[in-house]
């Protein structure tokens, strides 16, 4: 009844290609996270401090990023912009889509982080003669970073995993590359099984680096 014969050799032969694609995955996810952290921080501060159109813009971004499927967000930057004559490369589509998505989630993490810092910390800083900017840079944001550190790690893992959607807009990251080889050899199970292991290893490495970094960063 179960007569499937496993063929691992073609997969192992293409392992270097898969590893290279894994690096592409890691690269696009990391870049999206860096951009997402900067934008997410800005969105959170806008939502907490400003009124008017900018705040409306920031809130809409967060709502859309969090409440629509990540796949649709990728499609927007691919086929959506394409319909208006703006054709991005697959790499740019995935980077834009992931950044949009991560910035939205991170903005909410940052907002929670800022709200967890008591107002009195700012008062104490200001009472020492610090400007508002100094108080935020030296006192508030370092504490917020500690609060959002593990949520950011989670988001990084999430970015790696949802970058796999890139294969649906023709991006040859880890999943795209796997799909490419799998469809050529019909060894679909074998290829995706190996790729799953690769994803697992990438995520484990991220978690390990994150933990080591935390020990170095947060001594209090």
């Amino acid at each position, binding site marked *: 009844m179960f007569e499937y014969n496993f063929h691992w050799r073609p997969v192992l032969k293409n392992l270097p290609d898969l590893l290279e694609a894994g690096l592409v995955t890691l690269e696009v996810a990391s870049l999206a996270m860096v951009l997402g952290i900067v934008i997410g921080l800005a969105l959170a501060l806008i939502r907490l401090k400003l009124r008017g159109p900018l705040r409306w813009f920031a809130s809409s971004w967060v709502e859309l990023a969090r409440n629509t499927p990540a796949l649709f967000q990728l499609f927007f930057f691919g086929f959506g912009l394409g319909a208006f004559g703006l054709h991005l490369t697959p790499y740019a589509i995935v980077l834009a889509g992931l950044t949009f998505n991560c910035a939205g989630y991170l903005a909410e993490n940052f907002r929670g982080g800022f709200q967890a810092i008591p107002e009195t*910390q700012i008062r104490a800083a200001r009472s020492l003669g610090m400007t508002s900017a100094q108080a935020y840079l030296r006192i508030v944001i370092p504490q917020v970073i500690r609060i959002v550190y593990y949520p950011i790690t989670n988001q990084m893992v999430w970015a790696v995993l949802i970058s796999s959607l890139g294969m649906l807009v023709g991006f040859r990251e880890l999943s795209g590359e796997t799909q490419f080889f799998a469809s050529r050899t019909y060894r679909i199970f074998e290829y995706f099984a190996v790729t799953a292991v690769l994803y697992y290893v990438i995520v484990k490495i991220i978690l390990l680096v994150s933990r080591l970094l935390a020990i170095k960063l947060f001594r209090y």
Partner: protein
Amino acid sequence: MIEISDLYKSFGDLQVLKGINLQVEKGEVLSVIGASGSGKSTLLYCINGLEPIQKGSIKVDGVEVHAKDTDLNKLRQKLGMVFQQWNSFPHLTVLENVALAPRIVRKLPKRDARDVALKQLEHVGLGDKIESYPGALSGGQQQRLAIARALAMEPEYMLFDEATSALDPELVGEVLDTMRLLAEEGMTMICVTHEMGFARDVSDRVAFFHEGLIEEIGPPKQIFGDARSERTKKFLSKIR
């Protein structure tokens, strides 16, 4: 000198200060006592410009705190403040807590800021804790850290907002001793406090606040021994 005239302050509909007139001379120690909600702490926040005011004026050495063209960040260097919830910065070591503002506000070179911080930490008896983080200190130590942090700006005035109210009873003494030390050194201080012993022994004058007004002000002898106002007597009788 701190000169407060006809000061009104409200939070929304709530009138907190209703016409305060007060002068504090250089070198004077003034204790402010009164029930919760009588406006004592709010007065301190107004003096260093952390709260806007509705009417009247506060002048520190002739500079009007709430005037539009006043550089508050500069003025605040003269006015050290210690809070009820000590507000140490948890992500910085004890030394960094104290050295940060001298470095980035007074713009001292790193070495000098460190020296100033060390000196003030010795001053409050925390010289052996400089590498610790505030989380590892007791409440009393954290409050002394907050005092050292304010002193490192070399202020001319110190404002204490119920500096001992949030402390465990056995830790109150060490903080009061530090405040006493400052008073003996000639620091000008305004202390909002519930510590009647401290108010009586250390201050030059005591002001009793009642519902946003100064009900009575005078030397401790008068306030604690021979109060003229019935309300003052009643308040003190409840406390003792």
